[in-house]
């Protein structure tokens, strides 16, 4: 017999829902997590790099956990196709973690959505949440004008003190409840995704740890016209590639595009004309899956849409359904995690105070809109502005947009958000720096050994390797002692710097024009030595005892 009354109902076991479910369950609330697929992850489609700031600044249990990742990413190579018929292109690859830090210090982590979301949902279940799959929420229960539960497609009525809605970008329920409008087609991009199998050795050799983006002129029909969509992206996974091309359903108030025809043409042209795909990749890959889905890429750039409510009496909207897509990176995962965490905090407080009114829940909206990274994510304009450079064939302007979006120039508009998010965490507890260092080391170790919670191929606590490298373990211990000793100083310093954090963007904009060429030249000069150092470092890392890398909350019981 299914329970019919919960403290919290979470709709959707994607990326945001399970975070909210776990945190509410950890606080002792009764939580029901509902998923419409037969299995968690059945319905989620993406080409997925989760940027580092999601892991670094997101929920503790992800930072300290061992989720299944497909490959650490050290940066982006942008190919600017100026003449595809003759294979001419320019390359912008300044946004890259350099040796010896690459690929351990990662720009982000590639992942398949399904195993990652299953990992998140299992974390929610471990904390006490109840997960039910194959359940579609078709409507809400109302009590005195406020949402007080859900009605399922099977006619079941389940009541709750508060509903956390993480249903995804379509927002059928949010629209039905009158919380927000349907997104217009010029904000929605249809992503056409291909999954190709490729031997890991070939992925390592051809792609290494870098994403590849392609940008070009409209009439080349090689990458979807920018601004009307985006570019073309290729993600290297462990033993496969994810290939995504996407295009907005229409541009501004223009006509709806024939996406069926356009996306088929782009894919044909790319696979047959792009030299590195045609010559290097094509002979090594086998198509495994073809999928597509829409996402709300440009919702945040429209002030009216951006200011649409993300709460109502008895309900909060999390992630995509609240329009929290990162316009620059086409990524909604960190913003889903951040908003899921904020939603859980507000829901817990609402339950304690027995106040589920919109006037109380407004604090959720205030905190989401004040989050520095969410604020930056939904407003960045480089991807949107590319359309103008493209239409006019302005190569210099196109290169500027790419440099500022996916090159070193990105620091000119992301630094303040990152610093403003990092400093309060350091101020609160400088030991978080140790967690960040361990996160990068452990995630690489986990990727190398396929050591993940629940389904790891190697146990979380392995037999010691014959000659474990102790250098790194000892260094980490020394780091912990140093952080402990310097804790009051670090906390005070973070507090002092915080009011100045908003100047970080301006500082980077000033410094980058001079510093960038020097930095790039220095990297080039030191590269051979840095690579040797990096190789030695990797060898030590993969041979160490991983228990020294685990966070306090790492669960070892389920292996």
């Amino acid at each position, binding site marked *: 017999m299914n329970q019919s009354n919960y403290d919290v109902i979470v709709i959707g076991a994607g990326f945001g829902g399970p975070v909210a479910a776990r945190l509410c369950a950890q606080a002792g609330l009764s939580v029901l997590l509902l998923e*419409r*697929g*037969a*299995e968690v*992850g*059945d*319905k*989620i*489609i*993406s080409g997925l790099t989760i940027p580092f700031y999601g892991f670094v600044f997101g929920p503790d249990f992800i930072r300290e956990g061992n989720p299944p990742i497909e490959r650490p990413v050290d940066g982006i190579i942008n190919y600017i196709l100026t003449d595809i018929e003759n294979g001419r292109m320019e390359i912008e690859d300044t946004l890259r973690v350099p040796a010896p830090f690459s690929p351990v210090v990662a720009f982000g982590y590639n992942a*398949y*959505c*399904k195993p990652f979301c299953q990992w998140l949902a299992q974390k929610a279940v471990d904390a006490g949440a109840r997960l039910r*799959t*194959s*359940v*579609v929420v*078709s409507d809400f229960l109302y009590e005195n004008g406020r949402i007080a539960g859900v009605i*399922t*497609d*099977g006619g079941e009525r389940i009541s709750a003190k508060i509903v956390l809605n993480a249903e995804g970008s*379509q927002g*059928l329920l949010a629209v039905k409840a009158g919380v927000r409008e*349907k*997104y*217009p*087609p010029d904000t*929605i991009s*249809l992503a*056409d*995704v291909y*999954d190709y199998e490729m031997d890991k050795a070939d992925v390592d050799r051809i792609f290494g740890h870098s994403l590849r983006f392609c940008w070009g002129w409209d009439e080349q029909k090689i990458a979807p016209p920018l601004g009307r969509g985006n570019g073309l992206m290729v993600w290297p996974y462990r033993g496969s590639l994810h290939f995504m091309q996407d295009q907005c*359903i*229409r541009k501004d108030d223009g006509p*709806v*595009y*024939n*996406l*069926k*025809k356009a*996306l088929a043409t782009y894919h044909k042209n790319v696979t047959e004309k792009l030299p590195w795909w045609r010559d290097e990749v094509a002979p090594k890959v086998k*198509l*495994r*899956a*073809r*999928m*597509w*889905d*829409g996402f709300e890429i440009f919702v945040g750039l429209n002030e009216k849409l951006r200011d649409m409510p993300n709460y109502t009496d008895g309900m909060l909207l999390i992630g995509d359904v609240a329009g929290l897509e990162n316009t620059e990176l086409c990524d909604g995962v960190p913003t889903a995690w951040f908003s899921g965490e904020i939603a859980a905090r507000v829901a817990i407080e609402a339950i304690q105070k027995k106040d589920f009114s919109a006037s109380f829940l407004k604090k959720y909206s205030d905190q989401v809109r004040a989050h520095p990274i969410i604020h930056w994510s939904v407003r960045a304009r480089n991807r949107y502005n590319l359309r103008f450079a493209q239409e006019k064939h302005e190569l210099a302007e196109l290169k500027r947009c790419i440099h500022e979006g996916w090159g070193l120039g990105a620091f000119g508009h992301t630094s303040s958000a990152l610093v403003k998010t990092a400093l309060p965490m350091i101020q609160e507890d400088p030991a978080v720096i140790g967690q960040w260092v361990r996160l990068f080391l452990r995630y690489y170790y986990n990727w190398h050994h396929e050591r993940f919670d629940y389904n790891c191929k190697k146990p979380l606590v392995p037999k010691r390797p014959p000659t474990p490298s102790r250098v790194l373990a000892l260094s980490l211990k020394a780091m912990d002692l140093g952080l402990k000793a310097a804790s009051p100083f670090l906390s005070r310093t973070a507090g002092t710097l915080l009011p100045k954090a908003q100047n970080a963007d301006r500082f980077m904009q000033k410094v980058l024009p001079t510093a960038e060429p020097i930095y790039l030249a220095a990297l080039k000069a030191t590269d051979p030595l840095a690579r040797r150092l990096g190789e030695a470092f990797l060898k030590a890392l993969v041979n160490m005892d991983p228990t020294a890398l685990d966070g306090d909350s790492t669960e070892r019981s389920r292996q």
Partner: protein
Amino acid sequence: MSRKNEAIPGVDWVAGAGRFVSVKKSLCTGCGDCVKVCLGGCFEIRDGKARVKTLSTCMECASCWYACSQDAVSFRWPKGGCGFRTNWG
């Protein structure tokens, strides 16, 4: 029970989804926007109006619902546990 489609590898369609997408004929102008955005080829124009030809290749992206300026396309989720599923998203 689930079905596959050779042209769209890596995806299964679980039976029992119901008619979760439909076109209200009284609102449809026959503009064909739903046909243009559907990568699954689920729509066709017949007698000047759009109609759902099949949902056996629908990936539930809702592009048809977004694209229709007349609100003639009605879209809801298929029955729980039914419709498309994939391991490779």
